[in-house]
């Protein structure tokens, strides 16, 4: 982007090289085998990216939405699944601890999460509460010197590898009585009850968590009872913006591959790039990718200046994933049989990107948020 600083360009270059070296060569194999790229993940710690937004005091890089999104875009060009696991760790877990937890909690958990020694996850959704997440039913009952946790959490990225779980629970009868905890994996009563097999993002482990009479000391509570909704609101925008960066990476990778293929592949005696139908696909793909890039990094820059709110975050989360799925499908189509085969990364990129239309709030929930915000004044009186 024209307004990137020199530091941001350097970060982009570093991430691009890392992704080419550590992510791209094994992406297809890990997708087929449903295996997590643990080696690359630990190396991200050495690069200083696992706490991209966290305080330097704990080893973080203290950077903003723009930089976090640059990382997502560059990683996702090579392997969206590893990027999703990276996001679940650095944004959903580390960033939440870093913005909401006490100094003691930060000192205890952040250094190992940021060095790559520990892996983190965040647990919000439940089998019956997806889009309606605030309706969650995992219970936290206050006892004399601890909380008793019971319930199940669903769709947890990194579940099988997580040492630290950032957990949302219900602590009272009002819809918004939600309380947050940090749970360590060794805590008795906690387990990963199921592995979830998926269409895409197969190299990013997903599991269901079970909490059976888990006793958590009071010092594991983040903030006060009932703070969760406030915590969520603070960070959801960043989560939506950065996850859209994965879709930008997918679109850019597809475009790049299409340009190369259209110049090399010959049918009817000439490169298929000579045909208007192919030219139209590529011209539209590149136009859409530029729109995605401009929109996303503008919202990032404004977010970093504290200027934008939930509407623009929901708008990028609605627009980018949808456009990237379309681009990836067109890219497969442009490659014909080869696009459908695993020799090219396109079918994987499409399968992986489809998740971004569902995870971190479905397209339909984004539509609700945008419409509700735009119409709330006008509809107030009727």
């Amino acid at each position, binding site marked *: 982007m024209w307004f990137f600083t020199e530091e941001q360009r350097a970060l982009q270059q570093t991430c691009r090289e890392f992704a080419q070296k550590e992510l791209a060569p094994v992406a297809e194999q890990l997708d087929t085998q449903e295996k997590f790229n643990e080696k690359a993940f630990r190396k991200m710690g050495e690069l200083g990216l696992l706490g991209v937004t966290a305080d330097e005091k704990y080893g973080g890089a203290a950077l903003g939405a723009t930089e976090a999104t640059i990382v997502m875009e560059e990683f996702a060009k090579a392997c969206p699944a590893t990027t999703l696991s990276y996001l679940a760790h650095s944004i959903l877990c580390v960033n939440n601890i870093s913005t909401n937890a006490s100094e003691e909690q930060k000192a205890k958990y952040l250094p190992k999460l940021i060095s790559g020694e520990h892996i983190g996850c965040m647990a919000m959704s439940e089998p019956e509460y997806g889009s309606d997440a605030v309706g969650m039913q995992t219970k936290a009952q206050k006892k004399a010197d601890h909380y008793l946790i019971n319930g199940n959490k669903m769709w947890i990225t990194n579940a099988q590898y997580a040492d630290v779980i950032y957990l949302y629970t219900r602590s009272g009868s009002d819809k918004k009585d939600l309380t947050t905890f940090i749970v360590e994996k060794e805590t008795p009563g906690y387990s990963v009850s199921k592995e979830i097999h998926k269409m895409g993002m197969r190299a990013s482990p997903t599991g269901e968590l079970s909490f059976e009479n888990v006793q958590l000391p009071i010092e594991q509570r983040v903030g006060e009872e009932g703070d969760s909704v406030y915590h969520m609101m603070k960070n959801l925008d960043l989560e939506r913006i950065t996850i859209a960066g994965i879709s930008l990476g997918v679109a850019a990778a597809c475009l790049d591959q299409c340009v190369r293929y259209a110049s090399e592949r010959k*049918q009817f005696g000439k490169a298929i790039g000579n045909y208007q139908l192919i030219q139209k696909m590529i011209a539209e793909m590149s136009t859409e990718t530029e729109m995605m890039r401009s929109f996303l990094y503008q919202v990032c820059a404004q977010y970093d200046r504290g200027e934008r709110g939930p509407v623009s975050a929901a708008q990028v989360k609605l627009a980018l994933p949808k456009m990237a799925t379309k681009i990836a499908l067109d890219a497969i*189509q442009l490659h014909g*049989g080869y696009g*459908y085969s695993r020799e090219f990364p396109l079918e994987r990129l*499409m399968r992986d990107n*489809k998740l971004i239309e*569902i995870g971190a709030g479905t397209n339909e929930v984004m539509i609700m948020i945008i419409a509700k915000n735009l119409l709330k004044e006008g509809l107030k009186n009727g």
Partner: protein
Amino acid sequence: MDSQQRKELLEQVDRFCQNEVLPHMEEDDEKGYFRPEIFQGFAQLGLTGLTTEEAYEGAALGYQDLCAVLEKIAHYSVPYAITLSVSSMVQGLIQQFANEQQKQKYLPPLASGQAIGAFSLSESHSGSDAASLKTTAKKVEGGYELNGTKMWVTSGGIAETYIVMARTGEAGPKGISAFIVEKDTAGLSFGKAEKKMGWTLSPTRELIFERCFIPEEQRLAQEGEGFKMAMAALDRGRITIGAIGVGVAQAALDYAIAYSLRREQFQKAIFEFQGLQFMMADDATEIECSRLLVQRAAKDFDEKHINQKLAAMAKMKATDTAMNVCTNAVQILGGVGYTKEYPVERFMRDAKVLQIVEGTNQIQKVIIARELQRHYQ
């Protein structure tokens, strides 16, 4: 076949797929495992030779019947519908172009389901531009020697009988001839199985010909008539691929409706939200349009009226619809739609290649435009 008979046949097919196909699909899709017993089940129901004449152990029915059957099977499994569709197409070509001796030798095993048929036109550098194929068939004493590599052969390795296009003469379409090749022929070997996004249990292989001798009596029709046959194959294939698209789209929509009526968020069934209602209303309309187009193309074919424009429209419309409807179904089911617990993500992966095979949908547009031009000239 009258409508009551067709209804009964479809009920039998549905029952068989429910009991024998559906329970295996998730695991077999993951492992890429083709079950011969399912194809044998199709044979017992009389589906494997549906459009082949009775003299060759077929059921002598039409493409309207075949399309109805394929649509039903595609509710459960696109790749099994494809296996059946390709094997039927091979029989269609043999019936139309082969001599009596060839028909007697090759049709009964295919029609009775003892053998599976496969069709081989594409090569690595010759996809949409099929007439540029390079595999050669050199005339030798008593037959031909084939050399070259064919690609994207559906049912490669599991099929017994292959119709293979190879070059016997000049460059371009007029130098292409068609051969019937048996699986265990010396000089024929199977290349790697392609790893694919969908259709995982239907093997897609290369056929590698190295000084492979094919006796003269296995040439179909005359030298130089291969390309015409390939086009005749596509006239059939487009219609049946369209029917399979309709089937998988209908199945995906059925899952989406059932799920959205059951799933509650914000204290009501998600079906109550207009955002989803409009998606499903559009999907249902598109499926109905596609089905009507496919039925009309099949009826024209049965009445020996070859209408390439209509067949191309049916293929393009039905497979674009399949892709959209399956993608929407994953979206409506949300997280569970993305998992292997429901078949909709498999449907979406299986639907994508319907837009690519039997002529990409871009090539269908070329055909439609060519026919439009011809009409106005």
